[in-house]
């Protein structure tokens, strides 16, 4: 069964304290892995798409990496405005295309 698991569920960091969020997946026919940011009361906002193992994408303080089993979202020197829930999703093809989302990591960055 296709599955996406994110860890940790919640993370508290001091401003400037770098860390990584994990997204582990078991999926048939991976067609892409997506990272989204979700602020309270809002819909998810797209951050990155990764297509193949070894690929990396960067945006400001965020860097996403992908292996055959997991993806990491690295946050370097985070700021309070980086506080949000970060969602991982995979696009699989098993007869039909399907997006499967993880439950997210709630990140809180303290000033």
């Amino acid at each position: 069964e296709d599955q996406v698991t994110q860890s940790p569920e919640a993370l508290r960091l001091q401003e400037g304290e770098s860390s990584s969020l994990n997204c582990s997946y078991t999926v048939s026919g991976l067609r892409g892995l997506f990272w989204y940011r979700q602020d309270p009361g809002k819909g998810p906002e797209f951050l990155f798409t990764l297509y193949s193992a070894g690929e990396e994408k960067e945006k400001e303080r965020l860097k996403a990496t992908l292996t055959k089993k997991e993806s990491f979202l690295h946050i370097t020197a985070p700021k309070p405005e980086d506080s949000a829930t970060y969602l991982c999703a995979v696009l699989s093809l098993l007869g039909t295309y399907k997006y499967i989302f993880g439950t997210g990591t709630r990140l809180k960055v303290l000033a």
Partner: protein
Amino acid sequence: GAGVSQSPSNKVTEKGKDVELRCDPISGHTALYWYRQRLGQGLEFLIYFQGNSAPDKSGLPSDRFSAERTGESVSTLTIQRTQQEDSAVYLCASSLLGGSAYNEQFFGPGTRLTVL
């Protein structure tokens, strides 16, 4: 440009009533998705429209849930005889292409449904 819009933003209804939720996707986006997000949970796929193809309804939790889409524009999600467990945020997303790795989904702000 305009993003994905959803209405209403909040809906409070009584158990047993029917509700309609509306989604206006980004113009030109052929794919449209509905998700349900319960408090503290991830996104649960409900239904997917791609152009004029038959929709993928595999995520609908029961026959009380249905959705329609007019061409490549507005979509309506209908929940009949609402139950308290239907309380959640209903999110709509659209993407330029469906079923491809070369697209990302753009989400609306969601409709928060509360069933009393």
